[in-house]
């Protein structure tokens, strides 16, 4: 199945490893991601002032480009997903504002494209059972905490394809890869997002609450689908070792990295060198366990 794919700015730069892993592992399970030509930044936040049409122009422009390519647009960045999905719904439901946006970007778009998160596609269009059938290296005995963040869950009436309070899609994927999902209370609690740009100490406390909760549940690794969550959870741990006595760091994976590993793909370009908490020892252990 071929589908239009929007990488977004973060996956094109600091999150390149996430992007490489997503493309390779999606292809391995029969989902061919075709990069949208001439895409632009989605804006990274959905505007919350009700008449802020200008900030909807960038995501609307992406949706117009996607319409030329097919009926579905997918993305792996949960923030891009959130912005594109909400913009599309807004355009569908607000005729007058739609006309203003269309006039501004010189288009005639009424929300025809379906925006789907890649995890949603892996669950419903590929199927986790089909993915499980292709696993070469089951991640046996690996206890993984799935961290969903905010963007694919809230607001639920606009973006959610999973239960906003008890999401399971990442856990189910992790289980399909042979690992053991661990349940924890903070799986959908905000990590602080862009707050770190102003004050990292607040982000650190939020991240500590999340990771302590995951580790208390027995997690040896955390998996996420948001590049900003991955960055916050990963980076803050270096300082947390100084602020919280006895804190033991835990590697933070993108789900696609674990997926590529379990599918037996080459993982050199998965961005391991960018991780703040080195994930390579655990990866090595998994690879050795399989041989």
């Amino acid at each position: 199945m071929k589908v239009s794919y929007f990488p977004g700015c973060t996956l094109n730069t600091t999150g390149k490893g996430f992007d490489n892993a997503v493309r390779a592992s999606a292809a391995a399970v029969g989902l061919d991601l075709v990069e949208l030509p001439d895409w632009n930044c989605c804006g990274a936040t959905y505007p919350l002032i009700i008449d802020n049409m200008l900030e909807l122009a960038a995501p609307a422009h992406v949706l117009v480009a996607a319409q030329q390519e097919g009926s579905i647009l997918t993305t792996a960045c949960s923030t891009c997903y959130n912005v594109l999905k909400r913009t599309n719904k807004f355009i569908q439901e607000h005729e007058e504002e739609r006309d203003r946006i269309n006039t501004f970007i010189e288009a005639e778009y009424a929300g025809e494209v379906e925006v789907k998160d890649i995890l949603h596609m892996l669950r419903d269009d590929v199927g986790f059972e089909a993915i499980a059938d292709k696993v070469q290296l089951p991640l046996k005995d690996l206890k993984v905490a799935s961290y969903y963040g905010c963007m694919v869950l809230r607001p639920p009436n606009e973006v959610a394809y999973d239960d906003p309070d008890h999401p399971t899609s990442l856990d189910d994927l992790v289980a399909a890869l042979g690992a053991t999902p661990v349940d924890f209370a903070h799986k959908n609690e905000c990590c602080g997002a862009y707050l770190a740009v102003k004050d990292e100490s607040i982000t650190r406390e939020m991240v500590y609450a999340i990771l302590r909760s995951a580790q208390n549940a027995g997690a040896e690794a955390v998996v996420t689908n948001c590049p900003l969550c991955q960055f916050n959870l990963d980076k803050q741990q270096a300082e947390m070792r100084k602020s919280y006595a006895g804190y033991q760091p835990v590697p933070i994976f993108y789900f696609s990295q674990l997926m590529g590993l379990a599918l037996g793909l080459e993982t050199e370009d998965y961005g391991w060198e960018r991780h703040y908490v080195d994930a390579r020892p655990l990866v090595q252990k998994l690879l050795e366990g399989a041989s």
Partner: protein
Amino acid sequence: MRVRLSAESVHNELVQRIEEYSGQGLMACYQCGKCAAGCPVAFAMDMLPSQVIRYAQLGLVEPLLESKTIWLCAACQTCYTRCPKGIDLSRIMEALREIVMLEKGSHINYDALTSEEQADWPQQAFIGGFRKYSV
């Protein structure tokens, strides 16, 4: 705190601007406190999310414009998801930030970011942060 209420003070210009920018009806809130109970940044706030609405209901907007709280809301929408009245508090927070920034300018100093930070941090953090904290 003693507050003298009148129709004029409760519907003052700032209250009207909050409702206009956010599209939210402030009087819908009956102070159940779910927003404050579930807010993951409440520990760092000087006014709880539920207090932000309460103050606005009473026409007391100035303390909100001076609060730390409005800059700490990351729009995670946990409060909106749980609000029994369907109020999107993150939109009210954005309206308050907008009112401050329209008068005083951006709330973030670009120059304070080191080049190392600029190289390492995801674009998403910068673009999101600049959109929230600058005009």
